[in-house]
């Protein structure tokens, strides 16, 4: 991006004044934030700048220097902060409570309010503003994936216990539409009373918020919450961990009376298994590995439920990757990462993909549509030796 002198002056000043940036003084440069990685630096921010590898730890130093008046904010730094995939691993690992994800988000919000947004992100914002989804697809095509299936619509007066919050990626991206189609079939088989908002559903706002467009997030959340109120929604199942995170953690911040139980589908299915409602009849004889989505794992501590589902499927053999649960490596898609350019050096999604291949299993299992898209993208680059990628939903369906 091309910042003006005023932009630079103001951004520099706000970092000097902002309390949120004070945590950088806690950084002792111990390297814990990136220490769990196999070798080298794996932060999505990793890039070579003047021959030096920079990552979240390096950013602490940059912020410290700005605070001390040694350097100014810059156009390069503006581009740089939009590379963070908000995977939270640096936060998870830091013993000194330094939180780069938080202050990066603050910088992003300030840049967005100044109108300074990378092109690819601006396209996404415009799509959300015009169409209510991140994929530039028309609003009235949101329910196309339900064709031929029994999917009740809330606005057609369906009686329901659970609202299924589909999310943009499951509603519009063909690979994820397949998963959504299987999920509603599972719900129907189990006799769960559910409904969807259909064309009234809007993007959850997770992406808009994480990319710094707080106002747009507020608009989306308000619209969705109005729909929830209109249809007297009590319980929600979210297909995407990103929508789940927004609904569970961010919507209540906007409305203190928000009183809806929000479940990720893995929580919901694990509960049904525990209650004996969901039982499996067929064996799925596969050796798989499971990738923890950041917004399910580190952001919401849901590590056990997906594994409980996998354990309940007869014949299935789970092999863990070296980096799992809280130490899982990101797919590279979160926080707007799916639309951002990567820096030089190791790319986080390639690293994770390689780790999955190295387990030697047949299938990489995920529980997030964004992870699905990122890893399918890696498969595209690896046509000679791809790995099968399945959503947990697909395995559940096979075993029913």
């Amino acid at each position, binding site marked *: 991006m091309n910042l003006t002198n005023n932009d630079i002056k103001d951004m520099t000043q706000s970092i000097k004044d902002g309390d949120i940036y004070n945590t950088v003084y806690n950084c002792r440069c111990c390297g814990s934030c990136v220490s769990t990685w196999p070798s080298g630096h794996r932060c999505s921010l990793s890039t070579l700048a003047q021959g030096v590898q920079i990552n979240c730890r390096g950013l602490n130093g940059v912020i410290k220097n700005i605070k001390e008046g040694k350097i100014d904010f810059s156009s390069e730094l503006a581009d740089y902060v939009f590379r963070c995939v908000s995977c939270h691993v640096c936060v998870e690992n830091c013993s000194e409570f330094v939180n780069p994800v938080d202050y990066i988000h603050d910088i992003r919000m300030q840049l*967005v309010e100044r*109108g300074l*947004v990378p092109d690819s992100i601006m396209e996404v*914002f415009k799509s959300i503003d015009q169409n209510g989804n991140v994929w530039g697809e028309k609003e009235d095509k949101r329910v196309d994936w339900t064709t031929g299936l029994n999917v009740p619509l809330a606005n057609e007066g369906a009686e329901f216990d659970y609202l299924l919050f589909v999310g943009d990626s499951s509603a519009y991206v063909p690979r994820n539409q397949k998963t959504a189609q299987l999920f509603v079939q599972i719900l129907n088989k189990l006799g769960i009373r559910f409904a969807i908002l259909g064309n009234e559903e809007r993007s959850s706002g997770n992406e808009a918020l994480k990319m710094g467009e707080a106002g747009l997030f*507020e608009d989306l959340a308000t619209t969705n919450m109005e729909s929830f109120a209109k249809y007297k929604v009590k319980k929600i199942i979210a297909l995407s961990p990103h929508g789940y995170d927004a609904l569970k953690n961010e919507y209540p911040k906007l409305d203190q009376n928000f009183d809806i139980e929000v479940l990720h589908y893995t929580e919901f299915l694990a509960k049904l298994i525990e209650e004996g409602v969901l039982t499996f009849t067929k064996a799925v004889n596969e050796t798989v590995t499971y990738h923890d989505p950041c917004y399910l794992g580190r952001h919401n501590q849901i590590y056990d439920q997906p594994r409980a589902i996998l354990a309940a499927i007869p014949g299935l053999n789970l092999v863990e990757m070296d980096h799992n649960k809280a130490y899982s490596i990101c797919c590279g898609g979160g926080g707007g990462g799916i639309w951002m350019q990567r820096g030089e050096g190791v790319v986080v999604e390639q690293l994770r993909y390689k780790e999955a291949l190295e387990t030697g299993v047949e299938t990489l299992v995920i529980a997030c549509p964004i992870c699905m898209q990122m890893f399918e993208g890696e498969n595209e680059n690896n046509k000679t030796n791809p790995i099968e990628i399945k959503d947990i939903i697909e395995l559940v369906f096979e075993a029913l």
Partner: protein
Amino acid sequence: MNILICVKQVPDTTEIKVDPVTNTLMRAGVPSIVNPFDACALETAARIKDETPDTKIVIVSMGPEQAKVALTECLAVGADRAYLISGRGFGGSDTLATSYILSCAVRKLEELEGKFDIIFCGKQAIDGDTAQVGPELAEHLGLAQVTCALEAKTNGNTVQVRRKTERGSEILGVEMPCLITMTKTAYEPRYASSRKKREVAKQEIPTLDENSFEIDLTRAGLKGSPTKVKKTFTIPQNSTGVIFHEATERQSTISLFELLVKGNILQLGVRYGNE
């Protein structure tokens, strides 16, 4: 400094498709946007304001009431005031009539907002693509013009304008007042955030009509337009080509290559290429 920017709300022409059956434009659902070149003009003005803080940016648009959406977007990214020019007598204007109406409105705006040092326009609007309104407005107002500018910076009483030419670019110095039309700049126009749009949504946007300023209405609208559109049509696109879609790219390529040689499109015996 006092800057005026003429903007137009246009359909996003990259989203327009031709109906393959009726051969007409499918305009339904095509989003309206601020003409991209006008957005570049606004960003350029915002950058001048950045350097010269006591700059006022006034936006004017001619169009229907709905064009206020575009004006609001301009206010959200740094414009100070916005006016809409809208009147029954203005409909059907070609570029000469449009620029005449604008020139009358500019004189009125100068009474309200003070003399303008620079008037910016986009090089052209992406719906009409004529690139005429800017220079014609300059002529009506007797102003010096620079078209196709990539960059503009003020320096005392002059503007230094980098202008695109066939061979590269040239930097011209022009005294204010002047009119500059902007092409796509190296820097991107700013994004109008939702919060900023909400903030400016309450700002009043006055509408000027034929009664708001002095104008000879015989020179406006359809009757004031020397050019007449006799008819419009779309070019039917019928596939008659030979398209290969064989099992492998290699097979398709061989089939195509043989056909090209047979058809004398690639001549045998001609040595192609630069060594």
